[in-house]
């Protein structure tokens, strides 16, 4: 399945989703000591869209995701998620509210199997307390099996049935990335943050991952924020693009508009050489 085929799926306008804003970043600034990671960045993400965040290395893209996640707390600015202004939020609160993510350097739990890793993603949705779990038979077991069914659907979707019981440390890089995506999906998130999901993959793997991302967006309606360096992927997958450079936003718009933007070309894209 080529990139062109992927891009010729439902037209961009229909994929853009509703006009509801899921996440609104306003004038966010983040600094570590003297290092300014983000300076006065503002943009929004609409429900159901795929938003790409691009820029050269060190531009602050991962820091931006970390801020959305609650892992870093900006010194200035406000973040509004699902209409509610957020104060200093801790990462697990962000998770409870429906924000899931994958990581640039894979952050899987190496002591567990694929199945268990994805099951950890269900943790926020499981309710039975420690005493029921100690007993196991009865409500805890039923809950476990119900969530196992949900996880198996994700495993099916990502085509990783054959590595279900394998400890993740033994998996090749590409499969680990898929398992990480599965774990994030298990949380049934409203907003999915993907940090360079295609890094280190060959063309075939990139096509698979692109297909998964599109399917997640279309089948489950999940809003996605995506950091990516491969411009082909960005152009084909995303509805709108934000460009960061040295912690500042230098462009914001549709992929075509951004590609033609002079500032972006100067900072990041460059021009093709003969």
């Amino acid at each position: 399945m080529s990139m062109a085929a992927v891009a010729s799926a439902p037209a961009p306008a229909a994929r853009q989703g509703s006009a509801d804003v899921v996440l609104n970043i306003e004038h966010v600034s983040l600094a570590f000591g003297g290092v300014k990671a983000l300076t006065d960045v503002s943009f929004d993400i609409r429900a159901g869209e795929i938003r790409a965040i691009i820029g050269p290395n060190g531009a602050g893209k991962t820091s931006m995701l970390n801020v959305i996640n609650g892992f870093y707390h900006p010194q200035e600015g406000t973040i509004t998620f699902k209409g509610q202004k957020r104060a200093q939020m801790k990462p697990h609160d962000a998770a409870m509210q429906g924000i899931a993510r994958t990581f640039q350097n894979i952050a899987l739990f190496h002591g567990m199997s694929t199945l268990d890793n994805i099951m950890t993603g269900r943790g926020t949705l499981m309710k039975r307390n420690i005493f029921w779990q100690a007993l196991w038979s009865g409500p805890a077991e039923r809950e476990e099996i119900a969530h196992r069914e949900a996880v198996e659907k994700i495993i099916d979707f990502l085509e990783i049935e054959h590595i279900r019981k394998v400890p993740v440390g033994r998996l090749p890089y590409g499969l680990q990335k898929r398992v990480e995506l599965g774990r994030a999906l298990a949380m049934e998130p409203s907003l999915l943050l993907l940090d360079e999901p295609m890094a280190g993959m060959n063309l075939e793997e990139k096509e698979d991952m692109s297909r998964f991302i599109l399917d997640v967006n279309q089948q489950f309606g999940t809003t996605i924020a995506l950091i990516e360096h491969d411009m082909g992927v960005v152009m084909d997958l995303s509805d709108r693009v934000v460009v960061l450079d040295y912690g500042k936003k230098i462009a914001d718009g549709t992929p075509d508009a951004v590609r033609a933007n002079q500032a972006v070309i100067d900072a990041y894209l460059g021009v093709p050489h003969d």
Partner: protein
Amino acid sequence: MSPAFLYFLETVLNGLMAGIMYSLVALGFVLIFKASGIFNFAQGVMALFAALTLVGLQTGQVPFSHLINAVFGTQIHHWGSGLHAIVAIGGTMAIMVAMAFVIERYVLKYLVNQEPIILFMATIGLAYFLEGLGDLMWGSDVKALDVGVPTGGSFWWEDVTREWAVEGSDYFGMYIDKLDVTATIVALALVIALSVFSQYTKMGRALRAVADDHQAALSVGISLRTIWIIVWSISGFVALVAGIMWGAKSGVQFSLSLIALKALPVLILGGFTSIPGAIVGGLIIGVGEKLAELYIGPLVGGAIENWFAYMLALAFLLFRPQGLFGEKIIERV
């Protein structure tokens, strides 16, 4: 000055000295941690082993005599009247270097790149092994150690401080042990030498490289083997010095190895990778313990020294997890 203030001063001074003794042990930890990222729990036992070997060589004890007698039914105990102190120290040092070789060859080599907790537990195993070995070689009875380090209270200092007391009070002067003074001088000399070594020599730089990343150090051509043997030998030397000081102070016995446990709070305060930090941490713990015993002790029945250092370290950890001199830990995702 009033007697109460003079008692306070005396406690502080003795605390500082006690702290130096802790620092001596902590130094060995810092060296090995700096160079290999391993927290060497066996450092205390190494000090005990070094002290035992020293006494054994000095008194002319036959190693493993107990075992040999049990197996062969013989009655041998000593082979002569022993060696001179300096020779014995040299001999012990040689044994410590040999031990460094053996440890590198049979333990460290296989544990390259394991997680820190595995390495730590391996050193606990090593500590137990060395303890058993030391007992087997030299026997587990308490021994007196004497290499000519001056001991006992200093009469001169007592006389001087008696003059400082207010007229008419019955103050008998401050007690400072000459051994502690010697230990302080030795420790300071060691710290200066080691700091210079670490900071300014090529070998020192290699040590710091290895501490950061084993694989990377290997890939720039640093021989891990050599570095580790050197570091563990130096630590062995530091252990020997600590063993001599502690052994002269309270005899060579099992409880010496427990000093290792006391070094932990010292390291927490001073940071695990800082040589001067080991001294400062030791001083703070030493003074803290003694003062706590003096002022808080009577309120709760005494013997606070057992746990005060750890509580102090714990409190410190809550506010400054990396210690006074350690590097700040930044977690990245």
